C-alpha cells in the first residue's frame, strides 16, 4: 500500500519528466528553426547551389516517382471501390467522381504523398547526413572551405519543398485516372456523370489547398530530416536512432499540420 507522501513524490517526478520533455522539445524546435533558417539564408548568397539542388531533386524527387505513382493508383482504385458500395446504398453512384476527386485533391494526395516522401527520401536524408557526420565528412567539407549548411542542408530542404507539390500533382492525376478506370470501366458508373460531377464539384480552392499543403509538408519534411541527421549522435546507434526519430517526428508533424491547414481552408 502506497502512502500519500510516496504518491505525491511519484506525481512530482512524473510532472517533472513531462516538463523536461516539453522544454527539450521546445529547445529542439528552436534549434531546428535556427539551423534551417541559417541554411536557407545561403540561398541568396554566393556560391549559387543550383547544381546541388538539381542533384537532390533527382535523388529525392525523381527517386520517389515510382512509389508515388503506385500509391496514387491504388489509392484512387480503393476510393472508387469503397465509395461505390457506400454511395450505391443511397442510389447516388453519380456522386462517385466528385467524392473521389475531393478526397484525393484535398487530403489523400498531400498526406499520403508526404508520408511516402518521408519513407522514401526523408529517412535517406537523415541517414546520409548522419553518416557524413560520423565519418567526419562534414568536417572535411569545412576544411575544404565548403559550408555544410549551404552545400548539404540547403539543397535538400529546397528539393523536398519543390518536389512534393510536383509529386503530389502526379499522384493526384494518376489517382483520378485509376478511380475512373475502376468506377466507370469496372463498376459501370456512367462516364458522363462521373466526370461531370468531378468537374462540377472541384473548385479552384480545392486545388490551391492541396498544393499549399504539399508545399508546407515538403518544407517540413526537409527541415526535420536534415535537422535530425545534422544533430545525430556521431555513432552508429546515434544515426539509426536519428533516422527512426526523423520518420516518426515528421510523420506525426505532417498529420498535425494537415489538421491545422484543413481547418483553415474549410
Amino acid at each position: 500500500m502506497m502512502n500519500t507522501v510516496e504518491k505525491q513524490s511519484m506525481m512530482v517526478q512524473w510532472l517533472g519528466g513531462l516538463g523536461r520533455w516539453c522544454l527539450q522539445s521546445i529547445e529542439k524546435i528552436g534549434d531546428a528553426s535556427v539551423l534551417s533558417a541559417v541554411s536557407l539564408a545561403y540561398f541568396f548568397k554566393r556560391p549559387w547551389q543550383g547544381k546541388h539542388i538539381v542533384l537532390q531533386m533527382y535523388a529525392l524527387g525523381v527517386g520517389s516517382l515510382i512509389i508515388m505513382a503506385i500509391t496514387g493508383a491504388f489509392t484512387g482504385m480503393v476510393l472508387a471501390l469503397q465509395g461505390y458500395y457506400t454511395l450505391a446504398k443511397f442510389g447516388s453512384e453519380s456522386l462517385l467522381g466528385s467524392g473521389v476527386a475531393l478526397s484525393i485533391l484535398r487530403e489523400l494526395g498531400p498526406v499520403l504523398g508526404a508520408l511516402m516522401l518521408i519513407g522514401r527520401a526523408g529517412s535517406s536524408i537523415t541517414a546520409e547526413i548522419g553518416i557524413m557526420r560520423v565519418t567526419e565528412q562534414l568536417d572535411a567539407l569545412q576544411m575544404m572551405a565548403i559550408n555544410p549548411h549551404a552545400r548539404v542542408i540547403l539543397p535538400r530542404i529546397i528539393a523536398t519543398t519543390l518536389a512534393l507539390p510536383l509529386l503530389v500533382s502526379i499522384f493526384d492525376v494518376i489517382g483520378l485516372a485509376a478511380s475512373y478506370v475502376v468506377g466507370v470501366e469496372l463498376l459501370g458508373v456512367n462516364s458522363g456523370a462521373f466526370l461531370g460531377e468531378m468537374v462540377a464539384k472541384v473548385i479552384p480552392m480545392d486545388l490551391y489547398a492541396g498544393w499549399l499543403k504539399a508545399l508546407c509538408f515538403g518544407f517540413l519534411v526537409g527541415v526535420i530530416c536534415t535537422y535530425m541527421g545534422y544533430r545525430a549522435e556521431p555513432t552508429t546507434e546515434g544515426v539509426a536512432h536519428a533516422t527512426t526519430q526523423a520518420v516518426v517526428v515528421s510523420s506525426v508533424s505532417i498529420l498535425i499540420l494537415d489538421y491545422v491547414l484543413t481547418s483553415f481552408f474549410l
Partner: protein
Amino acid sequence: MQSYRKVEVIVGIFVLIGVLSMSWMAIKLGQIGGMGASGYSLKATFADAGGLRVGADVMMAGVSIGRLSSIALNDDSEAAVTLEIQNDVELSTDAIAAVRTKGIIGERYVRMSQGADDEVLTDGDELEETESAINIEDLISKYIFQGKE
C-alpha cells in the same frame, strides 16, 4: 560531368510532368483561367438564396452551363448573386433564374429557364425574373397554421 547533364535532363522531364499534371488539373478540374476567358457574367437578385454557395452549378434542362461566382447581401436586404455563364450559351432577356434543390436532400443550384424574347443577355446584364429558394420548413409551417385557423 557528362552524367550531370543526364541528371539535369531527367530532373527537367520530372518537373515538366509535374507541371503538366498541375495545369491539367487546373484547367480541366478547377477551371482556373478557363472560365474567365470563355464565359460572361450575369447578375441576379433573389429574395431568398438560402443554401446557395459559391461554385454552385447553373443548369439549364439538367445540363451545367456555368457557375455561381459570388454571392452577397445588397442594400435592399436581398441576395445579389453573380453567375458565370459559358460563352456558347445564349439566354434571352426574359430568362428565369430559380434556386432549386437536386433531389430532396441534395444541394442547391440555380436553374435557368429560357424565355421567349428574341434579344439575348450579354456580359453584366441583370436577370429580371427570379424565383427564390423553396423553403420546406416554411411550407410545412404554412400548412400547420392554415389547419388551425
